[in-house]
């Protein structure tokens, strides 16, 4: 949010100054994400570099020429050009991380995925041949579908009108919905489960339940929807 407001100020400054020269501050910020908007995003995927000149359209060729001259932002440590890279999993790892211990967070997530896969593959090998196709064994599809099932459609905002504050249903952006789904999942696993189970065990149980559209996180989402439905009358209090 700070970055976007800065961009706002910079674009104002650009229009005022007329010329935005590329500059690096005298004290270089290594780990922050506050870059001069002149810097371009890095291209991590391997396929983008293996395409020959002829295949690219006119805009892509212009973009390439631009990248030759402009400075590029440094890629974060966790971005990889590996074929197994999943941005949603990376986001989830960052949300679970505490005190900067990304190694532990990543371990938990990989153990969760393995646990989900183990349970499903065991079920798969025990079912008779006719029903084998119904069982989903891919932990990544289960993870994505479970999060999709947890995402709320509308949210509530507290708006003050005439001295009283009302819970008003509002539309949510995609990022906000994804954030809420992940946050609910993590808090549910941290607080409402038995103390002596491992985090990966709790997460795998909750994700499998969410995949089947059961479980506490789905219940929380349904309650939010019910509240929004109940407060439909105040929807016109929203002015944006």
């Amino acid at each position, binding site marked *: 949010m700070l970055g976007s407001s800065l961009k706002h100020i910079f674009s104002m400054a650009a229009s005022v100054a007329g010329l935005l020269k590329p500059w690096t501050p005298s004290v270089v910020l290594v780990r922050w994400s506050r870059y001069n908007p002149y810097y371009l995003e890095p291209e991590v995927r391997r396929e983008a570099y293996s395409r020959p000149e002829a295949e690219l359209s006119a805009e892509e060729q212009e973009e390439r020429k631009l990248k030759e001259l402009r400075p590029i932002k440094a890629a974060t440590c966790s971005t990889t050009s*590996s074929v*197994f890279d999943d941005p949603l999993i990376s986001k989830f790892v960052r949300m679970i991380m505490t005190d900067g211990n990304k190694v532990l967070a990543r371990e938990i997530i990989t153990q969760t*995925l*393995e646990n989900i*896969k183990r349970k499903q*593959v*065991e079920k798969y*090998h025990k079912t008779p041949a006719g029903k084998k196709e119904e069982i989903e*064994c*891919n932990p990544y599809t289960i993870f994505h579908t479970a999060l999709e099932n947890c995402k709320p459609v509308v949210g509530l905002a507290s708006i003050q009108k005439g001295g009283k504050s009302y819970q008003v249903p509002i539309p949510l952006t995609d990022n906000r919905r994804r954030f809420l789904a992940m946050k609910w999942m993590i808090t549910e696993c941290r607080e409402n489960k038995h103390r002596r189970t491992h985090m990966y065990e709790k997460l795998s149980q909750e994700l499998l339940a969410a995949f089947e559209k059961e479980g506490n996180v789905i219940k929380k989402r349904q309650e939010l929807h019910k509240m929004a439905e109940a407060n439909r009358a105040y929807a016109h209090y929203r002015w944006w």
Partner: protein
Amino acid sequence: MALHRLSLRLRPTVAHVRSIHTSRYGRQQEAAAVDSESEPISVFRTQENDPASQSEKQIGQFYTLPAEHIRLLFPHGLPNRYQQQVKTFNEACMMVRQPALEAISYLKKADYSKPALRYLFYGVKGSGKTMSLCHSVHFCYTQGWVVLHIPDAHLWVKNCKELMPSSYKSSRFDQPLQATSWLRNFKITNEPFLSKIKIKQRYVWTKRESTEEGRPLGELVDQGTSRVKSSSDVVAAVMKELRLQCGHPESNFRLAVAVDGVNALWGKSTIKKEDKSAVDPEELTLVYNLRKLLKNDWIGGAIITTLSQTGSLYTPKSAYLPQELLGERGFDSMDPFIPLSVPNYSEKEFESCYLYYTERNWLQHPQSRTEEGKKELIFLSNRNPTMFDRLCGFL
């Protein structure tokens, strides 16, 4: 594509081609080729489930261990991740690899009227030493030997909850918990032999309890499991009896001593006495008697061992050679032994493992089925069996 190449390589073993100009032979060969193509050849599996009949042709292929054998022979011997894998896939498949085959061929050809040979599997971390040991032990079991399997010698020199001074020798220490659990597993594995073998000496446990000469070994083991206080001495007695009896021409059994993590017996231990001084492994009854068993002064059996850095105490992580892990004392005691190096997977073995995981629906990530993904897996794991297994776990 790799499957196609492998099947081409293996086709000569399926239908051996010799240019004999007889029309009858030609037709037979065609018929054989048609038969083998009509049923799906799984190149990574073999039907030779008996370790005695396996040869170099089956290197890289998986053979199935019967569930009964797993339950009886390995109540405590298999690595944890492998046990989880057996539970998940609903079958126990082990890869036939060159070090284990070499050990089995020596076991078949050895002269059992000479002192017992010592085999030592060594290799980098995660290269498959414990699995090779289990393969050799499976061979011994199918041949009807008595199996004395210590799953991890490191567990006897660390994290000891109860340490008692020994009743037999005052300078030594007993470990009742470890001894009882080992005796229970020994009983499960060697059930048929417990009634056949008779002990040759009288053992006195307390003023009122003793085991007479001529009683079956089963009674001795039951004494150890029921009376926890004397269980370490019972273990020592069992080892002594088996060692003395298996060489005699009248006893018709052979003894296989399998120890995983043998470098623990000559290393340091983290157990402390009451005055906070460290206990030397020699002062523990279990370790002392196991060392006596590992000496090659008895006949009629074999000693198969493995080195292990993973559970070892005060050894650097990069050490894997026998000289480094056993130390001077250990190497001198184990010398002479047959060293068997266990390397990482070869290309063929890696292919076979990859195909096995794909067939068992374990590699689920869509990218892992592509060539790019496979190259990345080879790079990340360096063809190390454990690393490959851990990578495929979450992919």
